[in-house]
């Protein structure tokens, strides 16, 4: 820290250059934070995915399959617990405000125990068929508190009474979990089932289950696909691990794309800072010669140059990642409905990567100028002819 005043003076020598460099580095790291942060979200979701949970749904036919399928799935060897679900897709007030509710049966807790809904909260829902449980994110999105009424319009699910609005009562709010990036709403299967026309009753959109052993999950999933392949209701089965294996967004290789963008940004910054520090050193060649004359070692001079290069990089990286964190929180408000982009999270891993990248950029930028200073001929430099 002994050199700090010297470094500070060097940076302030050209304040415009310092500010512009800092801003450019900050913007590049904002992008870096958003991109790597998105990967971090995918990774968390993949890591938190339960290895023993399996989803199975009808291969064809959007109206669902008979609820008997759930019982047949339960009878397949290796299956520990089974719950049947119905979907209620729709919107709140305006088609822009898309909403989605999972209508679950009483076995839900045995398969979705990690979703944080307490047994007494489930009991409230079983007692009141119109009752629902929301995660905090959804409750905030719809501005609801416990006891409020929640009304959804669904054009997709037909009601026996011909209406298309569904009234619910919010009975409990629970914490969000990483696997459900946009939050979740649970409702009562019996309510939706009995409200449908008789011909549509007794159907399920999805059956979710647990394997008795996580190591068996893939085998159990394959067994379910096989068991139903030649039936009237072929099923499509996938383990939660595979379904959440990040890195797959509509078939895109997300890691490659986000990594490429982050890298392009870093490349841009490397040229900028590298050039800035080279110029700064060249302008002060005589000054460095003086420092060396009065006894500064090569190492001391090199340290000063590296620190001068590192300062805008590290400060810019910190500001950039901070800005990315703020922007990430605004994304849900700016994003059109139905655009399920995972929200970037600024995990410690992201910050570590940002810090590392900043240091690498600083080191590369300073490398050449340090070499010049080491090799410089002091007499020539002092005379101003270098």
């Amino acid at each position, binding site marked *: 820290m002994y050199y700090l005043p010297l470094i500070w003076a060097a940076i302030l020598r050209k304040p*415009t*250059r310092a500010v*512009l*460099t800092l*801003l*450019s580095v900050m*913007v*590049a790291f*904002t*992008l870096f934070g958003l991109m790597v942060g998105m990967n971090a979200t995918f990774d968390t979701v993949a890591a938190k995915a339960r290895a023993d949970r399996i989803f199975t749904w009808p*291969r*064809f*036919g959007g109206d669902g399959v008979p609820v008997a399928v759930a019982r047949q799935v339960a009878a397949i060897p290796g299956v520990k617990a089974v719950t049947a679900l119905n979907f209620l897709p729709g919107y709140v007030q305006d088609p822009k405000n898309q909403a989605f509710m999972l209508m679950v049966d009483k076995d839900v807790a045995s398969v979705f125990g990690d979703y944080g809904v307490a047994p007494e909260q489930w009991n409230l829902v079983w007692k009141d068929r119109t009752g629902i449980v929301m995660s905090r994110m959804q409750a905030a999105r719809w501005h609801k508190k416990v006891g409020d009424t929640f009304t959804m319009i669904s054009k997709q699910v037909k009601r026996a009474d011909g209406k298309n609005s569904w009234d619910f009562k919010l009975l409990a709010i629970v914490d969000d979990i990483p696997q459900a990036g946009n939050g979740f709403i649970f409702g009562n299967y019996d309510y939706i089932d009995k409200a449908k026309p008789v011909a549509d009753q007794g159907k399920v959109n999805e059956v979710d289950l647990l394997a008795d052993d996580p190591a068996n999950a893939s085998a159990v999933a394959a067994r379910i696909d096989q068991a139903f*392949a*030649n039936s*009237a*209701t*072929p099923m*499509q089965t*996938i383990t939660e691990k*595979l*379904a959440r*294996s990040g890195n*797959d967004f*509509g*078939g*895109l*290789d997300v890691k490659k*794309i986000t990594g*490429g*963008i982050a890298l*392009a*940004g870093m*490349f*841009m*910054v490397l*040229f*900028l800072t*590298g*050039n*800035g520090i*080279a*110029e700064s050193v060249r302008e002060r060649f005589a000054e460095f010669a003086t420092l060396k004359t009065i006894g500064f070692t090569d190492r001391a001079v090199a340290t000063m140059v590296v620190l001068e290069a590192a300062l805008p990089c590290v400060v810019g990286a910190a500001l950039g990642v901070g800005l990315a964190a703020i922007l990430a929180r605004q994304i849900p408000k700016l994003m*059109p409905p139905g*655009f399920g*982009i995972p929200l970037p999270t600024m995990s410690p891993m992201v910050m570590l990567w940002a810090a590392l990248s900043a240091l690498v950029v600083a080191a590369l930028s300073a490398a050449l100028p340090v070499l010049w200073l080491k090799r410089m001929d002091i007499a020539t430099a002092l005379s101003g002819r270098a």
Partner: protein
Amino acid sequence: MLRQIFIVSALNFKSLKGRFWQSMVIVVGLGATIGVLLSMMSMTVGLRAAYDRVGDPGRAIVVSKGAESEGSSSVTRAMAPIIMDAPGVAKDVDGKPLADRQLNIGVPVLRLNGTKGYTTMRGFGPKGVALRPEFHMLKGRMFQAGKRELVVGVGAQTMFQNVKIGDQVILPDGGWPIVGVYQTGDILDGQLVGDTETMLTAFHRSAYNSILVRLASHDTLDAFRRALTTNPALSVTVERHSDWYKKISGQATTLLAVLAYVVGFVMAIGALFGCLNTMYAAISTRGREIATLRALGYGAFPVAMSVVLEAVALAVAGALAGAAIAWLMNDGRQGIWGVNIFHLSVPPSMIGLGVGWAIVVALLGGLLPSIRAARRPVVEALRAT
């Protein structure tokens, strides 16, 4: 005046060699920006092109009223013949209307990377191929009407597992073998095709998804539409095939395009700061040179213009380099987005857009430094060391 601008600019460019690395900041900054922008846009552009090609303006599609996609549309057996016999539809050599009953069903597939996705399975009626001159078989044979068999698009084979000739696709009444490979050069290349009536039975369905017709001429669409929309027995929407796919491709590509522009915009801001930095440095190293010119009688405007021109030239060079990289990395490669298989594309129009962006950044980044260069008092600049 023009001559002055030319002379001063020429001087600038001659001195570029001495400021090579400094100038590279602009070139690399815009190269990275435009490279990323065009790489991301290559998906949107390629997907849109695949949809544009399938949408033949000589064809029209009939879906149920207000349907936003073929999947959510339903045309009953009773409605089909009324639509196909309506005025304005071209006739085949056998005297029957050139019109086809189509199905459009999502089928789960295994992607090459092991993840699960969906593709579209299409039902063709007897006139399915006659309606699509772009459809031709590459390998194997066409499916036979009435038989439970499928043909697969050449693009689907490059992205999905288990879609080779001889493989079975699980449908509601068991496995259907794949008997051939076709190519259309459009979005159908990522799909599967089978016989409409046989599929209808297998899926226990009673309605088609859409009717596709060849128009007697480009101008008969209105007559055709009037005949259908005024018929009380029908409740349908009629669209020119090309207009229909413009709408569909809009839905499919919006997210990709928005992401590309947002990322490109953020990078452009970063490049702008780099550009400002470089140009300020350039005018400061050339301060005395500029002052000398001014002392010789060159005007402030030519000096300012020359600074902006230099920034623009460097930015355009960077943009072209970035575009070249984006083109080499992406153009022609097979892409996938949801159910869509297509070829990524970096066409000249997109390169033009990239150069346009670069010029805007350079104008913004060159303007402030150019004003400073022009305003600096000559005497002060000449005295400065």
